[in-house]
């Protein structure tokens, strides 16, 4: 067991744990944000640089600090490592710069985008970004691409996190898409715009941290914050069947995987569950999905309301 201290909080973790995972075990504000890292996808991480932290003490044996900020999702902990995240102004500054870079070519079309309200980039720029851009040049633009009849790809919004590529690689047998070209010109694409057709391709939508890959069956249907997410399951032969279904009234608007606090899906669902089962009768509803308190989905919902004690005697008499 290695002892690691992140922002003055210590925890003992097993060897081979990354700084990000250790921070998530502690939890709270000190968890670095991550756009490209996904705990269920092997080799993900190290692309977006938002999770950068400062290592002020490499280990017990070699207490020299690391010369540069390191990506916490890729750096494994050492015994006696001391890490600074939000306590280091250098990290905060660097993160601000990373957000600015991520937004250089991002169209900022949140009012149009279906991901708005549950977008990692939106949250990131809200917390770490500035409200103005210094970029004066024309933004790089592409036309949107239909990947099959159920998924739509907006290359403008893509931040090249590679999550969807890893998801396709690791969840399905035939990967037909990847990243073409290099550097600023790189783009996610299929080979000659081939359709991606396999049972788990829909998970690309869930793993995408931004609005680049969106559900075409939900396109412009509603804003996520007007919908009520409910956890539900069904007996599916292909997948676990554990999903979140999004209601408005009695109508199911869309079906997604269950996302945890960090926006990661652990039970990937098949396309049949995602796109074809949009009747409430198809599902066994378990209860309301848990929503992060900071999420806009909580807007206009009264949660944890305490009934005043005065009402109770009346209630008893009434009954």
């Amino acid at each position, binding site marked *: 067991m290695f002892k690691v201290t992140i922002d003055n909080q210590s925890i003992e973790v097993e060897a081979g744990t990354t700084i990000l995972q250790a921070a998530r075990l502690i939890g709270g504000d000190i968890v670095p944000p991550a756009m490209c890292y996904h705990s269920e996808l092997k080799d993900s991480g190290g692309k977006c640089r938002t999770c950068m932290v400062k290592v002020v003490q490499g280990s017990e044996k070699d207490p020299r600090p690391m010369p540069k900020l390191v990506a916490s999702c890729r750096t494994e902990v050492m015994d006696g490592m001391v890490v600074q995240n939000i306590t280091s102004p250098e990290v905060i500054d660097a993160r601000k710069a990373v957000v600015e870079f991520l937004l250089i070519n991002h169209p*900022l*079309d*949140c*009012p*149009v985008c279906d991901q*708005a309200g549950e977008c990692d980039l939106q949250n990131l720029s809200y917390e770490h970004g500035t*409200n*103005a*851009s*210094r970029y004066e040049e024309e933004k790089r633009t592409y036309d949107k691409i239909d990947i099959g009849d159920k998924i739509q790809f907006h290359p403008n919004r893509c931040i090249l996190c590679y999550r969807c590529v890893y998801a396709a690689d690791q969840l399905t047998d035939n990967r037909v898409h990847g990243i073409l070209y290099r550097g600023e010109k790189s783009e996610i694409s299929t080979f000659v715009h081939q359709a991606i057709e396999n049972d788990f391709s829909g998970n690309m939508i869930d793993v995408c941290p931004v609005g680049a890959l969106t559900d075409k069956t939900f*396109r*412009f*249907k*509603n*804003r996520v*914050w*007007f919908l009520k997410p409910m956890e539900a399951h069904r007996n599916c032969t292909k997948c676990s069947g554990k999903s979140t279904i999004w209601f408005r009234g009695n109508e199911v608007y869309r079906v997604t995987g269950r996302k945890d606090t960090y926006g990661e899906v652990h039970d990937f669902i098949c396309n049949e569950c995602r796109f074809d089962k949009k009747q409430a009768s198809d599902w066994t509803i378990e209860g309301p999905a848990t929503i992060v308190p900071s999420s*806009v989905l909580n*807007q*206009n919902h009264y949660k944890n309301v305490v009934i005043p004690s005065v009402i109770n005697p009346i209630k008893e008499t009434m009954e």
Partner: protein
Amino acid sequence: MNQNPKIQLTNRSKVVSNKEMTFMERLYLPAILKGLYITMSHFFKKEVTIQYPEVKRPVSDIYRGLHVLKRDDEGRERCTACGLCALSCPAEAITMVAAERTDDELHLYREEKYASIYEINMLRCIFCGNCETACPKEAIFLTDRFVASETKRNAFVYGKDKLVEPKDAPIDISKRQTAEVKTFKLDKSKSHNK
């Protein structure tokens, strides 16, 4: 009947008596003349009513009245049905349905998404102006116009036919634009002003 005459809600209540009226009171004429005098005296007082709609009361420059959905310089609708006005609305008066713009409609809508249905229930609306503050596209504004009276409740649900400004008769909202807002709009680094 007040059971306990000692308890009074106001000090203006009078105990009614069944005392027989005097001769003068039975004539009724002095009372009628007194009433007529009061009525006639109002002819010479200053009028308290105004002849709406020919005459309108002056309102403040930043008066919050009937909403307008603005068009941009090229006459395209600015609203992109993002739903932030409906979200910010404390009275939940706004509902909308979004649709995707087709290639033939490029001259009608500014963004690729637009509101095919946009409704404000004027009976619910409290004219707080939160929708205007929330709007990221400078599409919805409150104006100095009033909501007209109607005879049916359904008529107060205003659709796009009543809310979107006519192409040939733009509605002036410049009075509600403070100097701060104007300088903000000129700042090109704020991305949505581009």
